[in-house]
């Protein structure tokens, strides 16, 4: 059972795009939230991550969430259990 992946992005952010390409290339499904257009979700992202940079990637859910700030291929691969 694969872990749910949520990615907070802005439409103009290159590292968001790189992260999405990386997930796609590993056939990982994800939910994208555009914090550039959704102010409530932007606040949610800032509260969750304690910072404002995008992308923020949340792997897993409930108490098992792992939160990754930025396009960190190593951490993302480890969290998803895929080869880098």
């Amino acid at each position, binding site marked *: 059972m694969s872990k749910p992946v949520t990615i907070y992005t*802005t*439409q*103009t*952010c*290159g*590292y*968001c*795009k*790189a992260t999405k*390409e*990386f997930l796609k290339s590993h056939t990982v499904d994800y939910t994208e939230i555009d*914090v*550039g*257009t959704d*102010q409530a979700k*932007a606040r949610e992202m*800032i509260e969750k991550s*304690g*910072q*404002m*940079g*995008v992308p923020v990637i949340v792997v897993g859910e409930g108490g098992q969430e792992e939160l990754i*700030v930025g*396009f960190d*291929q*190593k951490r993302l691969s480890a969290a998803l259990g895929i080869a*880098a």
Partner: protein
Amino acid sequence: MGTVFDVAIVGYGPAGITAAIYAARKRLSVVLIGELPGGEVVNSGEIENWTGDGHTDGLTLAKKMVGHLDLHKDQVTVDQDLVAKVARGSGRQFEVMTRGDKTYTAKTVIYTAGRHPRPLGISGESEYKNKGVTYCATCDAPLFSGKDVVVIGGGNTGAEAVIMLQKIAKKIYFLHLEDQLRADPILVENFKNDPKVEIILNAKTTTVSGSMMVEAVTFEDVNTKATRDLKVQGVFVAIGAIPNTEPVKDLIPLDRFGAIEADRYGKTALDGFFAAGDVTNIRDAQIVVAAGHGCSAALSAGDYLSRMGAPEGI
């Protein structure tokens, strides 16, 4: 004995991609290693000086470049990763080691790793990084909707940040250290009469402060020494860039700015090691220049390989 590539290209921006295309067309075997497809072009916002496109944007142009490179995937292996170190291998070969612990061996290297934004080096800056302090207006501007922000650095990057923020932020202070903006007048025209943009010259930023997030920036007037606090929630730093030369600092001499000295053909002091684009001491950090320089470096690498002997395939 593992694969020995004819060319290892470090960097996934316009210089690296163009070098890869030219090398592939010469039927050289190529590995290209870079983290961000399209490089910093992706973060460039609006682009109006790439020949052939009157108006485009960084994401679109980067996608086109990567798409063009994909046409050569039979010749070009791409590893989407950062390079940790480039060193001499056996004989005249080079070893390129990635953060993901892979090592590629190649007869030549074309180093096109670009630059990263220069920090201000002031109190509070690193503490509030991503808590209001950002180095990428293109990435983060949409998060500052309705907020008051400051853009520091009166060059083209700063002016482009102001233009991006005009549609988003409530108030924009545009600070520059000198008595005149450096940005191209065509950019400044976009906001010089906009009441929500306040241009402040001779301003030396001294402190970023806040609690959880940024709340203020303090600057000093370089002439009067008077200080002023600006209540802002966002700080966009645009004061130039530093070449990404850490992986090659033990391999090749760098100039006083940390850039690789390369000639117009991409040649460096080290045989077989070529460099192109913003990571070099090239005068103009422009996409079109980086692409051209990447082309020249690939042709130089091709010449070098033909002098070494016939290129070997994978």
